[in-house]
Structures are given as structure tokens and as C-alpha cells.
């Protein structure tokens, strides 16, 4: 798909040694909407004889009811357990017999599913996706809900409870967002709520959110769009449309003051988490904060890595990221102290570096270095058609967020437009010392290592 990367002749952006500075990223597609409301996006890439079928349902844990946290994700599991014309277990068996693989994931805002298959098995993938979109409830039983409830509880044990520092984000969500904000609970849910999820919840949830009018189907790979359009119409036209889904909503998020939280865990070393509420995905400040994260912690010459790990050698690791979400985002800095050092020491250095960024913009080179890394990441995304973050998934992501599946170049332009002054200004605006959550996770009994006593 070399032709996808069009040269922008005469564009006046050739002053700095950018990666592929004169290249516009584009993933051409055709799209159409079925009468039942299903949005469809098709993209050709003939590099290998494979196809990826990707479905986004515009629902995540932010749609859950209180007392039913974890339900959207539990439901994702039930989607693999069979539908009216697909016996339990057959979803995976048939795909494996065709040389395919598949997965799904849930976050606060959306649920996505993908199937990667050789090009001869596209019909099978469309049959399976359309059957569970149209006829899931015909076969779901209280027993199948119980089965996946156990699996999900073990996912929670494996990924949270039994993992060192695994409870950190559950604690952070609870402190960053008020209880009535849908980001205040984790997508994995609480054990109690998982136990309470009922068969009736499954049917209600499916009817409310899993209609074709609340979904987008992207197919990328070795396809002929004209033929595939006909196959999509064949398999999905009998899926009944669902009720309208109101836009995702939540109360305004704000942090009145600084919250300090302490958690004791079965760990050897203490770890510090400093988090702020930040602008929603694709909003002004969102890309800037990605660049801030890079300037602070990406690579050995980044500011916090250099000071904490390389020069002072008081931290084992340091990382930062902007967690971009639809209603509100959050930005975190995370660092692990080495033996003999406290989280208060780490916090002091981090605060010092943030003050520095507030008062003086970073160098052109630091910002450009970060932008170049993002640009290079865009190239990498163009190599894969499927899986999480492959082109089919990205087309659906951009469509869901902006209505434009081929938002690649617009997205990258946000990063290309960031200058040093934007960095100082976003740090001053978002990363305020008086409205943040500081979480200390310390070894059991070692509260002497915390960064400040807990606020009540």
C-alpha cells in the first residue's frame, strides 16, 4: 500500500529533520451504512493473503449501573460463548480450523472484537460476527453466565489481586473521579458486583447496546471491496436494529484539592503514582500531554529518567502517560524507589522537574524528538491490518471518535503542531499541585516510605 503514503509536494514543512516529514499518512477506505444502522468500513491491503474483521460496539464500563461494575467486560466474554447458530465452543474451534485467531477487549468507552483469518475464510468471520450481533440471546443461559463469571474473576485475580502493585489503578480511579462519575470504577469491576450480575442483566445490556446501529464493522486486508460489500450485506442485513443509544455522559470531573492515598502491598519496593485529571481524547491539550510524557520519561535522555534513574540512581524506573478517554482523561507519572530511598525523595525531584517545565519551555530538540517517535509509531501501525491497534482497529477507533475513519493524518498533525511553548502552558494548566492524586504503594508495614501522610 505504498500508494497510500502520498507525497505532499511543495509543502512548507521542511525545516527540521523530521522522520518522513513530507509524507502524508492516509488509509483509503470505502464506507457505507446498512439500513439497520450498521456502519461498515472497507480497506484494501494485499501485503499478505489475510483479512481482519473488526467490530466496535460503542459501549464500555462507563455505561454500567452502580452495583453492576465489571458487567460490560463480563458481557464481552459471553460474546464468545456461542449464538443461535454457533454452538458453545464452536466460535473458537471453527476459527482455529480455518487458521484464524481472535480476541476482544473492553475499556470505559468501547468494546472491540477482532478476527484475523486467511482470505478464504472471510465468510466464516462474517457469519460468526453477524450471528452474535443478531442472535446471541437465543442461546445465553444462566449457566453460561456463571461460567464466564468464574473466568473473569480469575482474570481479576491474575491481573490485579495477585500482581504486585495490581490494585493501584482501582485506587486511583476511585480518587480521581467522584462516585457518580462513570470512570470512578474499574472496567474489571468488583468481585461483589461480578457475583451479582444476572442473566437478566445480560439480556438488558445486549438489547440496549449491541444493536447494529451502535456498532461499526471494519474489514481490512486482502479483499475486493465490491465483493466484500455484497458479503457484508448478505450476512448482516437480517440483524435487527436496536434502540437509539444516547451519547456517553457523566458529571464534570474535578479534583478539589490534593489527595494523598497510601496502600500497603506484598511488594519489596515502594512505588509512587502522581495523577491529574486532563483533557479528553483529541481535545486541545491531549496530544501536548503525550509529548509531555515523552519529554519526561521516554528514553534515557528524557528529563525524569535522566535525573531519577541515571544521575541520582534513586529510582528503578519512571514512566508517564496520558490516558486518553472520551469524557475526561488523566495523566500519571509512576516511579519505583530503589532500596534505601523513600517516595518523598522521588516526589521532590518530580516536582522540581515539573516546576522547571512550567517556568521554561523545553528545547526544540526535545519536543521534536518526541514528535518523531510518534510519527515513527504511525508508520508501524500501517504494517499490521489486524489485532489490537492494527489498521482495521484504528479505522474503527477514528470513526467512533470523529466520524472519519481515515483520521490518521489529522491525528498526526496534532503532534506535528506542538511547539515548546505549548508544553509549558499545558503543564501549567493541567498538572496543578493543588488538584492531584498522590498514591504511595509501600511494602507492608513500611509507611515510613510514603510520599506524605494520607488525606482523609
Amino acid at each position, binding site marked *: 500500500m505504498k500508494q497510500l503514503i502520498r507525497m505532499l509536494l511543495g509543502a512548507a514543512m521542511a525545516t527540521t529533520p523530521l522522520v518522513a516529514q513530507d509524507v502524508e499518512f492516509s488509509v483509503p477506505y470505502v464506507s457505507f451504512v446498512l439500513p439497520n444502522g450498521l456502519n461498515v468500513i472497507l480497506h484494501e491491503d494485499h501485503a499478505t493473503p489475510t483479512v481482519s474483521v473488526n467490530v466496535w460496539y460503542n459501549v464500555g464500563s462507563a455505561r454500567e449501573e452502580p452495583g453492576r461494575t465489571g458487567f460490560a467486560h463480563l458481557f464481552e466474554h459471553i460474546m464468545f460463548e456461542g449464538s443461535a447458530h454457533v454452538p458453545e465452543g464452536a466460535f473458537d474451534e471453527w476459527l482455529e480450523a480455518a487458521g484464524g485467531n481472535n480476541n476482544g477487549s473492553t475499556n470505559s468507552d468501547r468494546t472491540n472484537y477482532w478476527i484475523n483469518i486467511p482470505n478464504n475464510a472471510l465468510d466464516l468471520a462474517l457469519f460468526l460476527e453477524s450471528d452474535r450481533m443478531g442472535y446471541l440471546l437465543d442461546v445465553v443461559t444462566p449457566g453460561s453466565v456463571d461460567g464466564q463469571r*468464574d*473466568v473473569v474473576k*480469575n482474570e481479576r*485475580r491474575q491481573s490485579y489481586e495477585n500482581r*504486585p502493585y495490581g490494585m493501584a489503578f482501582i485506587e486511583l480511579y476511585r480518587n480521581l473521579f467522584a462516585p457518580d462519575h462513570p470512570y470512578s470504577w474499574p472496567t474489571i469491576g468488583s468481585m461483589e458486583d461480578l457475583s451479582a450480575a444476572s442473566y437478566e442483566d445480560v439480556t438488558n445490556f445486549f438489547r440496549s447496546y449491541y444493536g447494529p446501529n451502535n456498532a461499526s464493522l471494519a474489514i481490512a486486508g486482502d479483499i475486493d471491496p465490491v465483493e466484500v460489500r455484497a458479503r457484508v450485506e448478505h450476512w448482516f442485513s*437480517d440483524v435487527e436494529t436496536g434502540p437509539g443509544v444516547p451519547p456517553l455522559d457523566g458529571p464534570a470531573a474535578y479534583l478539589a484539592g490534593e489527595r494523598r492515598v497510601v496502600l500497603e502491598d506484598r511488594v*519489596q519496593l515502594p512505588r509512587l503514582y502522581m495523577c491529574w485529571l486532563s483533557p479528553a481524547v483529541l481535545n486541545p491539550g491531549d496530544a501536548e500531554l503525550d509529548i509531555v510524557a515523552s519529554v519526561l520519561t521516554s528514553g534515557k*535522555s528524557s528529563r525524569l529518567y535522566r535525573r531519577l534513574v541515571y544521575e541520582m540512581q534513586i529510582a528503578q524506573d519512571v514512566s508517564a502517560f496520558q490516558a486518553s478517554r472520551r469524557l475526561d482523561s488523566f495523566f500519571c507519572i509512576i516511579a519505583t524507589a530503589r532500596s534505601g530511598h523513600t517516595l518523598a525523595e522521588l516526589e521532590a525531584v518530580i516536582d522540581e522537574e515539573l516546576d522547571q517545565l512550567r517556568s521554561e519551555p523545553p528545547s526544540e530538540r526535545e519536543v521534536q524528538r518526541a514528535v518523531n517517535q510518534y510519527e515513527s509509531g504511525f508508520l*508501524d501501525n500501517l*504494517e499490521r491490518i489486524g489485532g489490537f491497534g492494527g489498521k482495521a482497529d484504528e479505522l474503527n477507533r477514528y470513526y467512533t471518535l470523529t466520524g472519519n475513519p481515515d483520521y490518521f493524518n489529522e491525528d498526526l498533525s496534532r503532534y506535528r503542531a506542538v511547539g515548546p511553548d505549548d508544553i509549558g502552558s499545558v503543564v501549567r494548566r493541567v498538572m496543578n499541585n493543588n488538584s492531584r492524586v498522590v498514591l504511595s504503594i509501600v511494602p507492608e508495614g513500611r509507611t515510613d516510605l510514603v510520599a506524605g501522610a494520607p488525606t482523609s
Partner: protein
Amino acid sequence: MRDKNLPLLLAVTLLASPVHAQQLPDRDHPPELGAPPALDLPPIHRLSLSNGLRVVLVEKHDVPLVQVNLVVGAGSVTDPANGAGLASMTAEMLDEGAGDLGALDLSDEIDFLGASIRTGTGLHNSMVSLHVPLSKLDRALELMSDIALRPTFSPAELDRQRLDRITTLVQWHDEARIIAGQLFNRTLYGRLHPYGMPEFGTEDDLRSMASNDLRRFHESRYVPANSFLIVVGDVTSESVMPKLEAVFGWWTGGAPDRAEVPEVAQVGERRVYLVDKPGAAQSEIRIGRIGVPRLTDDYYPLLVMNTILGGSFASRLNMNLREDKGYSYGARSSFSFRPAAGPFVARAAVQTDVTDSALVEFMNELRRILEPVSDDELTRAKNFVALRFPGRFQTVSGVANQLSELILYDLPDDYFNQYVQRVLAVTREDVQRVAREYIDPERVAIIVVGDRSQVEEKIRALNLGPIEVMSIEQVLGPVPEMAMRN
């Protein structure tokens, strides 16, 4: 074909009620599939530089990216008995200062190019890999060459990495997965065997490691006669060979002795090793024995047999422990294929209160795979292994990994084209034969890392064999004292 009538069909769809206008799809049977696509690989160019360094090149022009992997026959298998971690630390230190640049400037420049240069070690090889946008290839190759061939090995940087690693050893005490993995390797091969000793290094060995040790290892083992380059991406041999010659052509050095991996006795009578991790919400289980070298004639039957047992989502282990019983988020098995026999392992993290029941199901499945498999399972497993193969060639790094295997095991050029056919030729009898040869449920080591107070009694009641109860310190050694810095 109705596809040919598309415009008309669309018009009808838009005008009339869709469900009535269209013929309802036949959902009573899964759709029939046409013939699977053939793997159509671009040619593999085998070239060399003036110093004899082998170059294997595949053109791939989809995206303007280039992958260059330098694979060096210098792995942890040659680590001396009192120098565990030597190969691995050498690779780690390559980019902590090289050529004329210090660690920070080097990192800054690589990041600025939007490139990534990684260094790493396995048991038999080390690798420096470059992934870079085509427009930055020239400078990135110079930096890659400096990293691979002209590392500084400064004592101050070694001290940093030493502190980093010893701190990592501290953190391992938190990680049930790592505790289980370390004990599993040691139990199968013994502490002094290259497959049993910790590649990452031990506290004592890391503390005594000096820059000169790394320099000597690098001088003797990082040599062109022992190495090869894999190049995949938006280049041609004409465009890239002069660049490779310029940065790697001057490199010299004769081949060192080949690393020998000693023979080791197979696991004997079944035994349970229970490592106490108080308060653990899950138990990490590893069950296994020594497998077989990569170049065995049984390679393809083993791939298929393992897929049925625990190599895929719909495999028996996962269906049983996850889907039927709900004991785990996932259970799998695998053979590690290496120049000498690597381990076979079946594994899962299971919830604490069903640790014993999970062990029973593991043992049931290890016994059941010795019986003939169904035709359905056989077909599914063969297709799963064979038909997914083309998907591995999607990215420049994916193609490079496939080529590495070709060179490391001296496989013929038609290996890729033969692969699908070889897998599809595996029979039910083959599967049963290799299961019986390589899987012996009576002669396995069973590792459980979990909360002893919750699981020990119930495991004893299973009578799986003698039980050895251990502490985390007995597996990993005491938590390193971190007084030392610099």
C-alpha cells in the same frame, strides 16, 4: 454470482425493507471455505560482505520501514559457572555508550531519528536489531554498528546496570511467575547446566562482574564468522549492500569454539515442588519435563500434538481449566525448541482454593493426550498451525524473525514453502506416537507457587509423589542487600 449484480442489489436494498428484499443467509451450517491461499514469498537473497559476514535480504516495499538484525552466536550457554549473566550483561551494556557517544547522547540520537535499536541475549545468540524509517537508515546504521562493534563498556555504566539488575532481583521476590519459571528450569536441568542457570545473573556473579569480563567476551564472541545480518524492508540489495559494507565490512575476528550444551538426564519419578507465597490469590503451576531439540524429525507432529493439548485457545487444557471449570483465566502448554532439548511445559495461574482440582485436571489431560485424538481435533490443529503461517510475514520484524530461524538452524530455502504441506501431512498416528514419546505424566516435575497454608494439605491428598516445600528465598536466594551503590 450475486456479487456481479451488486448495483441492482444495492438499489433494491435502499428502496425496500431490507430483510424482505434480501434472501436470508443460511445460518444452519458454517459457510464452506474455498481453498486456503498459497504463501507467496519474495525471493530470499543470500549475500555476504567483504569480510565474509553473511547477509540475508528480503525486499518488502509496503511501508517505508527497514528492519536490520545482527545475530551473533554469543549466548548465555557459554556463561562461566561463576559468571552467570555475562552474555546478557554484555548485550545490555552495548548501548550504554558506544563509538564516540555516551549513553545519553546515543539514546537521544536514536530517539530523534524515530528509530529503535534494541540489544538482547538468548541462550545461544545475542542480537542487535534496528527498526527505522527508510529516510533515517544511513545514520541509524552507523549508530547500530557502533553499538554492536564499538561499545565502550565504561565501569560507571556497568555500575548503573549492576544496580538496576540487582534491584530487579529484589523485585523478583514479588513475582510468582518468575519464581515458578526459575525453579522449573533449575529442576529440569540443574543449577550448573546452561539451560538451568539464571541467564539474567545471580547477585554474587553480578557483583563481581567487571568491564574487562564484558570486553573479553565481546572480543572473542562478537565476530563476523559467528554472525549474520538479516535485512527486511523497503530496500534492494543494490541500495543497501554498500551501506552495510561501509559500517560492518571492516569488522574482523575468527570463529570461537562452538558452545556445547551437555547432555542431561530426563526428569525421573514425579515430584511436587511447593513454593510458599503467603496471601497469594492464585497458584502458579508449571508441569513439565525435558523435550527435544529443534531439528528433530518429530517437529511437525509435535507442533500439532501440542496445539491439541494446550497450544491454542480451543485446546484441551484451556477448554478444561478455563471454559469448563472456570479455575483459571487461561491454561497453555508449549515445547521450547532450541539447538539442544528445551523444556516442555504445561502452565496456568489458578485460583488458590482449587489448586488441587486444577492439578487433577492437568494430569488428566496429560494422560488423555496419550490416547488417539479425534479427526476433528486433528484437522483443526493442523489448520491452526499451517494456515496461520502466512500471517507471520506481515511486518518487517516478523519476516526478519522467520529468516533468523532459517539461518540459525541451517534450514533449506524452501523451508517456508514446505511448511504448510509438512504440517498438513501429520497423521493421527504421528500425534499419538510423539505424545507417548515426549509426554510421560509419571515423570514430570510439578511446580506450584502459592499460599502453602491454603493448598498444601489438599495437594498431599492427591498422592502425586514426594512433595518438597520451599521458601521463595530457597528458589531465588535471599533478597539482595542493597547497601552497595557504585
